[in-house]
């Protein structure tokens, strides 16, 4: 089974713990092997068994969506981002107040007063900046903001022999392959989508016939 590097990367970016990711990787591989063996035992070809195992296991989107509903699987820093900001603020304040404290200990009253006033101003400014950053970070999701760009990926899919998708008599699609794509990441999803297409069967002399020769371009527009 090709390892689900993209899924693992997405989950890692979302803050899922490394322990979970390692286990998921191993267990998905194991599960895939079991599914493949089950399909082979049902006398399917290796290619069919592999395809069936992949489909039954589910695509990256389904697994990632399920993961993201469980916040308890995320690192604490992703679960309580406010804690990180509070911790940072405390460290800042400690560092800034260290200088006037040193002055006070040496009994240099004037220097201490001046430093305290200066450092308090800096501390307030930092607190303000950190609060602003926090508001921006946990504000509305990026997709809701006015400014975002769209990244476009295209996958052309077709039947291997005719360079076109073959249509079965029922109107279902078979033997889909990718002819060209701008990014291999989207090929699997494009193939899955193509198998869901349903065409009106071509009818000649009252009989529906198979139509080799349908090419389709699937476009993915992703907000980035």
């Amino acid at each position, binding site marked *: 089974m090709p390892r689900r590097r993209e899924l693992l990367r997405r989950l890692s970016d979302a803050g899922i713990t490394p322990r*979970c990711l390692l*286990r*998921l990787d*191993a*267990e*998905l591989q*194991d*599960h895939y092997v*079991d*599914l493949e063996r089950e399909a082979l035992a049902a006398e399917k070809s290796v290619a069919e068994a592999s395809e069936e195992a992949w489909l*039954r*296991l*589910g*695509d990256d989107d*389904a*697994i990632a969506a*399920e*993961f993201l*509903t*469980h916040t*308890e*699987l995320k690192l604490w820093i992703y679960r309580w981002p406010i804690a990180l900001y509070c911790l940072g603020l405390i460290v800042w304040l400690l560092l800034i107040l260290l200088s006037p404290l040193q002055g006070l200990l040496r009994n240099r009253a004037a220097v201490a007063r001046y430093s305290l006033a200066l450092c308090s101003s800096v501390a307030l400014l930092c607190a303000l900046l950190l609060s602003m950053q926090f508001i921006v970070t946990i504000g509305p999701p990026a997709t809701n903001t006015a400014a975002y760009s769209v990244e476009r990926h295209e996958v052309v899919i077709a039947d291997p022999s005719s360079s076109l998708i073959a249509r079965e008599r029922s109107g279902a699609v078979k033997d889909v392959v990718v002819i060209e794509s701008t990014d291999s990441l989207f090929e699997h999803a494009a193939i899955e989508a193509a198998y869901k297409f349903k065409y009106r069967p071509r009818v000649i002399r009252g009989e529906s016939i198979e139509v080799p020769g349908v090419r389709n371009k699937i476009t993915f527009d992703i907000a980035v």
Partner: protein
Amino acid sequence: MAQTNPPFMSGVPELLILRLLIRQQMYGYELVRAIRSSTGDAIGLREGVVYPALYAMEARGTLKARRKSVNGRNRVYYAVTAKGKRRLTSLTEEWQRVTGGVRTALEEPGRA
């Protein structure tokens, strides 16, 4: 009146997993097969999604995982904890209350 749990459907996989694992410990693939056969294939799911549910239940302390080597393959077996047994009892009661209510509503004459 007992409080209704709005996303009660979200508790169904948890209920099924706990119900099946209380009988015997299982690994992921085995568990999915058990879900299919015990529900008469009524619940179809992408099999990979069972793992996040299992990890979350383990994080909440209702399941525990243990690695076991079987026929040369290293598998992770899941079993129900004492907390999981209490959770199963509560989920079962909640589910029976909800399904009982729905059944009563469906059987009520003149409301079809």
